[in-house]
């Protein structure tokens, strides 16, 4: 097989996000399925880690609906996943604010303000695995919301500080500081 043929096959087998977006715009609905399959789990991990509870699937779905509704505004300057994290994060914040305005009980432990270091964060009650994981979640619960977002994106998704800064609307340097502060806080909790 020639190099050109091999390259073409690789692109067909593993199209980029931008390729899939172009295909979806031209009417290929299968491309949308591939995009959702590629990113839905990461979005679910993120919203779960930063405080969403039983409405995780709803949040993930709403994230994709909003993203696909405005894909023309996605220029590819960041990765699609980073853009999706940005949308998911805003959705979480909006829901949290509206719940506060209604004065009802919160289904999400994530707080809008960064000053509340300790929340009732415990999004994984239904999937408790073992003592180590429970301790990890407790440690995460002691982080500020921004520390939790940054730490989640860095550790769970392996995103760079630059990507994280874009997703959580901060600077690269601040993201690095948030990450190391989060790591220190987790270590201190586990050492107690």
């Amino acid at each position, binding site marked *: 097989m020639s190099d050109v043929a091999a390259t073409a096959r690789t692109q067909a087998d593993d199209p980029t996000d931008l390729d899939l977006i172009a295909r979806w715009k031209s009417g290929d609905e299968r491309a949308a399925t591939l995009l959702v399959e590629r990113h*839905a789990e990461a979005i679910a991990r993120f919203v779960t880690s930063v405080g969403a509870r039983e409405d995780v*699937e709803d949040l993930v779905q709403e994230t994709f*609906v909003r993203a*696909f*509704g405005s894909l023309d505004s996605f220029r590819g300057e960041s990765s699609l996943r980073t853009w999706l994290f940005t949308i998911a994060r805003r959705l979480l914040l909006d829901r949290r604010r509206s719940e506060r305005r209604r004065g009802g009980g919160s289904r999400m432990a994530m707080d809008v303000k960064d000053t509340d270091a300790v929340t009732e964060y415990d999004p994984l009650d239904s999937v408790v*695995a073992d003592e180590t994981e429970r301790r*990890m979640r407790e440690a995460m619960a002691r982080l500020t919301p921004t520390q939790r977002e940054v730490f989640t994106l860095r550790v*769970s998704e*392996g995103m760079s500080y630059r990507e994280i800064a874009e997703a959580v609307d901060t600077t690269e340097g601040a993201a690095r500081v948030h990450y*190391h502060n989060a790591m220190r806080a987790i270590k201190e909790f586990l050492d107690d």
Partner: protein
Amino acid sequence: MTDCPNGDIRDLLPDLVNDRLAPETRAEVEAHVASCEDCREELALLRDVRRSMHRVPAVAVSDIVRALPAYRAPVRRLGIGWRIAAAALLIVGGGTSIVVARDEGILGGDSANVVVAPVVQVTPATPAVTHVAASDEQAASPSRSAAPATPTPAPRELAVASTSVGDLSEAELDALVNDLGSLDAVTPADVDQGAPVSPLPPSVTSGTGA
């Protein structure tokens, strides 16, 4: 649990966990970790945290896909060039012409500059506009002119052709005033839409450079 003093290596541990390091960098980090107990502990901690984060309920992809909106291409607004072309077509279609006037005191001061009578002559496919000055014959025939002359406060010449009012003869001035006074009565039906309008004779357009 203490921190390794090598901050650069510590910064790369999450990338090692997520397998996002280039082979050379990965080898470097792994070599450091092999000899650093602090980094080994931190790496183990990161793996535990990551494992706990990856326990999430399954997401129904098909439900999400069904909820997605259909793609709607954005509506593109016409550019300024097309708007100009459309305006030119409208003018030609109506068979009208435009007269634009000069600065203050069109009938009064020596400094008064004219009066341009640009008659639009355009081919439908392009926004190109040809300005042709008004003639005496035109002045006597309101059907060749459409837009009213508008005195402007500053010495602003809007047209390709201009000259001093003082250069005009009495007859030409009278014809011009009559022409301006009759502009409101112009209707598209009054205009000969077929033939282009003749330019002004040299007596009116001299010195315009048009």
